[in-house]
């Protein structure tokens, strides 16, 4: 059998109207969603940017031509404009900005990943427990959620960082603490719709504990919509982290964090524009990538909201 024929049969298998197994149905669904998504040009651009970010972060050591922390000769290599040697110029400590931006991708990716890893479970837990039990548990948990929502995000993160002390770890914790409430709201709403579904009743009648039902049956059903929401929030997380860095409350020098780099270049903006501009372009590109990706995902998965 030729390769072409086997590929076609795979396509047919995926698009089959009568899937033989649950796995085939699921893969087929994923395949159709993917086909729909590939038709969304802006979404694909977003995906490409995000993949690029991941690749740059992984291969930062290979891509960066210079050391991101150690500068060159302070007498001759400070504040050089962009050239073939230094694609984005050098900063006031004679460091290559391109190398720093490349290494900054690691920090950015780390922030996004850690915030997602911390905030998603908190939101899921609070939301599903609140929605599943209802009553006073729900009232108390939702009140707490509302209080966190009432605080503007950046301000609350600022206050937390002030309390915990500046630094990238604390910035991540602060952003995570301020990001979970919307996820909790969403997970609660989802839980309310499935709480009384018949298959949950069936499990309950079999004598499963509440914890088991929530963890084994409610959380998996809420997971996908919460994950989409987190993806949509990624750009916001990046911007908040950069904002904290810019205010000197996030990553500390000499770490190559993009927001902090802009703050560092601020003093020279008029004469040496590239120092502050280049890391800004990086932030802008990456958060645009996440926004385009999230927008495309929403169009595909929730056609009503996008139209």
């Amino acid at each position, binding site marked *: 059998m030729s390769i072409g024929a086997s590929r076609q049969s795979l396509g047919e298998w995926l698009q089959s109207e009568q899937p033989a197994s649950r796995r085939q149905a699921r893969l087929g669904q994923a395949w159709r969603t993917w086909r729909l998504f590939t038709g969304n040009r*802006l979404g694909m651009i977003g995906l490409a940017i995000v993949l690029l970010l991941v690749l740059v972060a992984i291969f930062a050591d290979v891509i960066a031509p210079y050391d991101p922390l150690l500068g060159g000769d302070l007498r001759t290599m400070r504040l050089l404009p962009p050239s073939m040697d230094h694609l984005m110029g050098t900063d006031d400590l004679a460091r290559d900005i391109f190398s720093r931006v490349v290494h900054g991708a690691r920090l950015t990716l780390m922030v996004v990943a850690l915030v997602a890893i911390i905030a998603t479970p908190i939101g899921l837990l609070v939301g599903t427990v609140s929605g599943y039990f209802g009553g006073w548990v729900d009232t108390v948990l939702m*009140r*707490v959620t*509302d*209080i*966190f929502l*009432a*605080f*503007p*995000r*950046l*301000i*609350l993160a*600022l*206050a*937390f*960082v*002030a*309390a*915990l*002390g500046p630094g990238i770890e604390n910035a991540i914790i602060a952003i995570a603490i301020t990001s979970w409430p919307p996820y909790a709201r969403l997970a609660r709403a989802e839980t309310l719709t499935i709480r009384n579904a018949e298959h949950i009743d069936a499990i309950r009648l079999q004598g499963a504990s509440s914890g088991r039902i929530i963890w084994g049956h409610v959380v998996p059903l809420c997971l996908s919509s919460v994950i989409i929401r987190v993806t949509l929030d990624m*750009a916001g997380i990046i*911007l908040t982290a*950069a*904002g904290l860095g*810019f*205010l*000197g*409350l996030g990553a500390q020098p000499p770490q190559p964090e993009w*927001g902090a780099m*802009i703050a560092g270049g*601020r003093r020279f*903006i*008029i004469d040496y*524009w590239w120092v*502050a*501009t280049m890391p*800004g372009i990086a*932030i*802008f590109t990456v*958060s*645009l990538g*996440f*926004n*385009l990706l999230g*927008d495309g995902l929403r169009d595909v998965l929730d056609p009503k*909201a996008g*139209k």
Partner: protein
Amino acid sequence: MATALAEGRSRALPAFLGKTVRLLATIAVTILGLLVVTFLIGRVVPVDPVLAVVGDRASQSTYDKAFVELGLDRPLYVQFGLYVEKAVTGDFGQSMLTKKPIIDDIARAFPATLELATVAILIGTLFGIPVGVWAAVRQGKLVDQVVRIVGLMGYSAPIFWLGLLGLLVFYAKWGIVAGPGRIDISYEYAFTPTTGLFLLDTAMQGQWGAFRNVVSHIALPASLLGYFSMAYIARMTRSFMLNELAQEYVVTARVKGVAEWRIIWVHALRNAAVPLVTVVTLSYASLLEGSVLTETVFAWPGLGQYLTNSLQNADMNAVLGGTLLIGIIFVGLNLLSDFLYTVLDPRVRRRA
């Protein structure tokens, strides 16, 4: 039928009162929660509040006296009670930095933030709504795509970076706007800041030179913030309008022979305005927050800058007071949007 209507109206008043009471209770609980959070943050910061008052050269006895005076020897819940009591009377303590009561500092900084956020939300609304309507009417066409992309770019750009670039281009290179700050020093004493809103003060006192200077200073930061809220408002307007234009009453209006512009701007927009009010008030609230970064970049002497300065100097009283104030503004604006919602939507107004 007529009696049913009359009943509906007489029932409406107690229902509205009940709703207000419920709302006030919610606000009270939320503000209490804000107080708990700020109080706890204040307790976990690695800053000794006693040293902040007495200075680090005070003797042990002075220190102990102040320790007791501040109530730090008492249980945590008593301390919290004192904190709430003071907060209710507007006493957030003294700023370490300015040595003035926090409430006075905030009263001076807030009008600057308010003025900036207000001009910005006006720009965002006046442009955002028509643009969103336009994009909805031409759904899928070029205009719609452009609006979408420009909006997404607005979501993606770090505001402090755009601010710096704006200053670089419009102020340093082209010189068409004034630089950082609210006003040039030469104009600062040309008028009395009665309201603290300089646009209003200068205009009311007929100081047109100063007025022009203020406009020139506020133009760039307000346009920037306005662009960000415009991106959001336009996007939401578009989606609300698409929803409304698909409703049956739009067909009814067409059947009646109503002109298309009137269908869009009167029939549909009037309905879309109901959820839009929430969007506009919420983005107004987030402007008061987003201003932290903008104010830093533009050296705007508002609440955001006050907060960051205090933060960097570990002036916790000031930080917590400011944070609490912004939290309260947030709650207040939510209340306002609920109220406007009832005004705009007859279905809510005359029902429970």
